[in-house]
């Protein structure tokens, strides 16, 4: 069931050989625009980080095709269990840059109330974009449990669990896929093989022949797709989603792609990524690839790009300015949401902190920096 040649749909010249993505022009342009908006979000965040206005961000350069192609296969009633490098999925489904920027600033309007690092989003509408965790792989069995719950109630919800090549070594990968196989759970596992786990190349991660092949160990189909071909990703994911939705159980999809930026805004990939590898992948840029398709289909012209991208930049800048103006969360946010109800010992600890502030003045802000 496992194929080892990655599926692709958009030929280098933009032709699709008769393949019909089944999307309207507006939908296709939404995909394209989302990819540009991810780039714009990244660009603005990098600037904010370099100027010390936010602490950290995660670049998505090169992965936009995978993100948007995958997101487009899901309904709003489905659940996404994303990794920290899945911005495009959020934007695709209508989560606003402002909501995301609140998190980048960790301000009082951040859904996580400034408790998480930037890029660790949590949204529950218009789609469930489940609270991102730093520990790698923990969300994988969670997606399977959530899928079991929906299945038990007879709903046709499908869950996405998205993770990297590094994530396949985690405990959650093994237990999650194994449980999903036994339960025939409606989940799609998306392995974004972007070549690197921070500075560790895939050969240091596993000696298996790619990642899709790991599906056989769990009795489910494994499929490899060209992750820089947004339509191929969409096609493969749609099939997997359909299988899950109709009771056919889980699928492991491997998207072969490449992280063209650093691991994060604090990382310098030139320390470890060979220049030739980067250059080779630059030629496969998913945005350029999609543009060729759109152009060949008459939906887009090269001169459209600049205005669209600068509109996206404006949108992201505006969101950043608005988020920057929002105050920090209040002191009480340290103590709430630990439990549904504030227990006496936390009430007491909070009280002491307030009183200390009155007695001794406010705490000095720290100045440590995140290394990666």
């Amino acid at each position, binding site marked *: 069931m496992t194929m080892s040649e990655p599926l692709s749909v958009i030929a280098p010249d933009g032709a699709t050989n008769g393949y019909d993505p089944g999307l309207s022009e507006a939908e296709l342009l939404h995909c394209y625009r989302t990819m540009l908006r991810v780039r714009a979000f990244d660009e603005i965040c990098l600037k904010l980080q370099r100027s010390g206005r936010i602490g950290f961000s995660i670049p998505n350069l090169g992965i936009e095709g995978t993100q948007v192609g995958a997101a487009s296969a899901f309904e709003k009633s489905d659940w996404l269990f994303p990794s920290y490098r899945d911005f495009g999925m959020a934007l695709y489904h209508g989560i606003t840059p402002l909501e995301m920027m609140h998190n980048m600033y960790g301000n009082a309007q951040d859904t996580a109330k400034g408790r998480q690092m930037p890029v660790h989003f949590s949204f529950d509408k218009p789609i469930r974009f489940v609270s991102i*965790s730093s520990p790698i792989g923990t969300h994988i*069995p*969670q997606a399977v*449990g959530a899928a079991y*719950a929906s299945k038990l109630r007879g709903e046709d919800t499908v869950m996405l669990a998205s993770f990297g090549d590094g994530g396949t070594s985690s405990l959650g990968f093994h237990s*999650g896929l194994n449980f999903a196989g036994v339960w025939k759970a409606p989940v799609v596992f998306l392995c974004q093989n972007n070549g690197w786990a921070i500075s560790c190349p895939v050969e240091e991660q596993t000696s298996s022949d790619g990642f899709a092949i790991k599906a056989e160990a769990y009795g489910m189909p494994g499929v490899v797709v060209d992750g820089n071909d947004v339509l191929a990703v969409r096609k493969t994911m749609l099939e997997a989603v359909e299988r899950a939705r109709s009771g056919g159980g889980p699928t492991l999809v491997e998207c072969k792609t490449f992280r063209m930026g650093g691991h994060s805004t604090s990382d310098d990939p030139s320390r470890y990524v060979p220049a030739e590898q980067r250059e080779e992948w630059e030629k496969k840029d998913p945005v350029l690839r999609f543009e060729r398709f759109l152009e060949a289909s008459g939906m887009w012209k090269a001169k459209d790009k600049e205005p669209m991208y600068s509109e996206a930049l404006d949108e992201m800048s505006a969101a950043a300015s608005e988020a920057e103006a929002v105050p920090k969360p209040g002191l009480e946010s340290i103590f709430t*949401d630990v*439990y*549904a109800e504030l227990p006496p010992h936390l009430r007491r600890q909070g009280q002491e902190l307030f009183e200390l502030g009155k007695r001794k003045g406010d705490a000095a802000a720290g100045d440590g920096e995140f290394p990666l």
Partner: protein
Amino acid sequence: MANLTLLQALNDGMKTAMRQDDSVVLFGEDVGLRGGVFLTTEGIQQEFGSERCFDTPLSEDGIVGAAIGMAMNGLRPIAEIQFQDFIFPGFDQIVSEAAKLRYRSGSQYTCPLVIRTPYGGGIRGGLYHSQSGEAYFCHTAGLKVVIPSTPHDAKGLLIASIEDPDPVLFLEPKALYRSVKGEVPEGHYTVDLTTIREVRPGKDVTVFCYGAMVPIAAKAAEQAAEKGIEVNVLDLRTLLPLDEDGVLEYAKRTGRVVVVHEAPRFCGFGGEISAIIAENAIEYMEAPIARVTGFDTPFPNTLEHHYLPDDRRVLDAIEHVHAF
């Protein structure tokens, strides 16, 4: 009212909760057809079917991880870990995920689940079938930690845990599974997750304990009474969040405190009780705050009855703080 063992009371508690609420599901290793290795879940798959009570693959990470996902999505999962000693492969899911999900999502996603697991010594289980790990979990904000010691409490605390909006680690004193019996009300009732139970009143010495140590402390208190020392025995029941005001109140009454648990002493739960008192009521103390605990070693097998605190050791500590 029926006269049940602690094990039967737990079984009754789960069945009661599952009858009441369709969203309660129960799973773990060997809990289905076999009814669990201790038979705690006997008859549940038969009554509720294998969609609501089922076996899982041998992965505690998967068991807890899947339970979290279920809890996020509307179910009320009860996940059984076969022995508390085997909870550690699921530790990351408990500590990093279940305990922190509400916080990190500003209550957008929550985690109402119960992890049930037998803990403690007394069955000649050696290193890996005897441990008492409550302190690991009590140091983890976002969890609740509950330990019953009577059949009545076992059922009522378990139902309350299942109905609680937050993740509860429910530790079952396996040494008491069949060795204690008591009256258990039929049908639905709960025991509050915030209160200490007074096992025995007494004005001279206060003994804090929980789980399998409760009958042992009670026995020691009886022996102390024969020697004229009136011991107030308290069963903490909910270790996290702890009723700290209650602890202080009881400690102040006698000014002499002994804490008893089976777990190793160093950085154990007993230390927290001592520290709370030393921080907030030291001026009431008329004697050292004594701890009677397991030793700071792994759990042995042949000599487990020397490792486990017994009435001799508890009585000795009571006499020590009384005579101080």
